[in-house]
């Protein structure tokens, strides 16, 4: 009896979808648009996070060393600094490399290059460029570097760094907070749209719900086909969005690569790596909204 009822519910649900095909198409379209918006929001979040990481990656602290320091002393200092907890990476820039970078940076500035030639010698000093593990720990890093006593260190003025880093942290935190708030509002709005789409779909069936109750159908017998239809709409919506969104990501990827040169930003890989999480959560979220909307709407119209 239970199996028979279940098969009937499935049959009624599929019949209803097919016999109200335009209503079904419109409802699925609304779901697809809602899911597209949510996925776009995710793309924006990934891009903004990449941008923030790119900014933070640029943050480094330099220790300038005395010009004629021996290499082995420099390497010893480098090893000492590398062992600090806050340090991600230490790069040694020799005098020659520093000169090369300087020439490259100012290659469009002939006056500076002329001045350098007239100087006759390399005025730059070797340095250790220190990348922190994260921008939040830069202050601790600066404190640790200030505590290192080594005669080969020529200058370590980090005051401007502190101010700049505090500003960067403040801005990026604010961007994250605002981004989170906007995302929540957006998701809430999208879910409301989905909720209403389902309620409208059931509203158009209110007379039928009424008739089914008058003929002697029980509440589950009336309600379950609508619930199942909602789940089918959700499943079809997710399938379509997967098919449509990946090509869109493929079109977007070259632009992201061109913008974030040097940074490994691959939005397609991100979605692949998190496929089950992203689309699974979307399915569950939309399905739950469907169930809630169906339940409330049918109860409202089945008061006979």
């Amino acid at each position, binding site marked *: *009896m239970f199996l*028979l*009822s279940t098969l*009937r519910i499935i049959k009624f649900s599929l*019949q*209803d979808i097919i*016999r*109200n095909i335009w209503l079904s198409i419109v409802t699925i379209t609304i779901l697809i648009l809602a899911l597209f918006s949510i996925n776009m929001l995710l793309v924006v979040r990934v891009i903004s996070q990449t941008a923030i990481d790119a900014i933070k990656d640029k943050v480094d602290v330099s220790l300038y060393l005395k010009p004629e320091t021996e290499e082995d002393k420099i390497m010893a200092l480098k090893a000492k600094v590398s062992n600090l907890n806050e340090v991600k990476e230490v790069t040694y820039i020799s005098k020659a490399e520093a000169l090369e970078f300087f020439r490259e940076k100012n290659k469009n500035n002939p006056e500076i290059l002329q001045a350098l030639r007239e100087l006759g010698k390399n005025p730059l000093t070797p340095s250790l460029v220190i990348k922190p593990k994260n921008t939040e720990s830069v202050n601790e890093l600066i404190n640790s570097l200030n505590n290192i006593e080594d005669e080969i260190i020529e200058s370590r003025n980090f005051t401007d760094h502190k101010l700049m880093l505090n500003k960067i942290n403040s801005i990026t935190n604010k961007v994250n907070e605002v981004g989170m708030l906007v995302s929540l509002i957006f998701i809430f709005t999208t879910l409301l749209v989905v909720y209403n789409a389902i309620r409208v779909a059931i509203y158009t069936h209110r*007379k*039928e719900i*009424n*008739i*089914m*109750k*008058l*003929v*002697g*159908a*029980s*509440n589950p*017998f009336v309600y379950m086909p609508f619930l199942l239809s909602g789940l089918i709409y959700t499943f079809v919506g997710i399938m379509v969005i997967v098919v449509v969104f990946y090509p869109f990501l493929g079109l977007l990827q070259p632009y992201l690569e061109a913008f974030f040169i040097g940074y490994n930003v691959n939005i397609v890989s991100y979605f692949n790596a998190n496929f089950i999480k992203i689309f699974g959560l979307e399915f569950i979220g939309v399905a739950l909204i469907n169930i809630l909307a169906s339940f409330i709407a049918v109860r409202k119209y089945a008061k*006979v």
Partner: protein
Amino acid sequence: MIKLLNITKIYNPDVRALDQVSLHIKPGEFISIVGQSGTGKTTMVKVLIGEEKIDQGKILVGGWDITNIGQREVPYLRRQIGVIFQDFKLLPKKNLAENVAFALQVCGQTPKKIHSIVPHVMKIVGLEDKQLRYPHEVSGGEQQRAAIARALVHRPKILLADEPTGNLDSINANEVIDLLLRINKFGTTVVLVTHNREIVNKLKRRVVTLDDGRIVNDQAVGKYML
């Protein structure tokens, strides 16, 4: 078969749709309940099918006290009473045969049984050639006959007809009434709620007259009188 014992139904704020109504309908009877609009006829149908609850009194249907029937039991009550309505109330996205079959499906009847019962019932109401038509593809009279088939298909002991000819022309109206009479001949109790004077007077059956929520007349072989 049906016993209404001093039933009262009050709608807010103080409208007495039914006022101390007592009525006993015997098995196999054909009874017309008549009255002008607003006298409580439809309210009587609603309390009999559990759509409304009464405020005072008692209702017995086939020995079952449905006065305080729970929401979960209402579907079972409705499966035992066949009801037809003025606006037919057919499911628009199901064809006529599917509409009739639906009444059996809600009872959990097997597909095999349904396939054997539905064509038979459709034949009784004269719609054997139109089983696959949708409600919007047939006339009002045919829709009402399909509704009668749906009401009959699970062999109810009682058939309630609430203004079944209200939306029909006189020829179709007479056909529907003839069908109800034939159904009654097979032993089904038929309760016809109507304000159609001509039909009632032609039937020469029991007539109960309602006025302002009260029974003002009850004649074994009656006429529509107010």
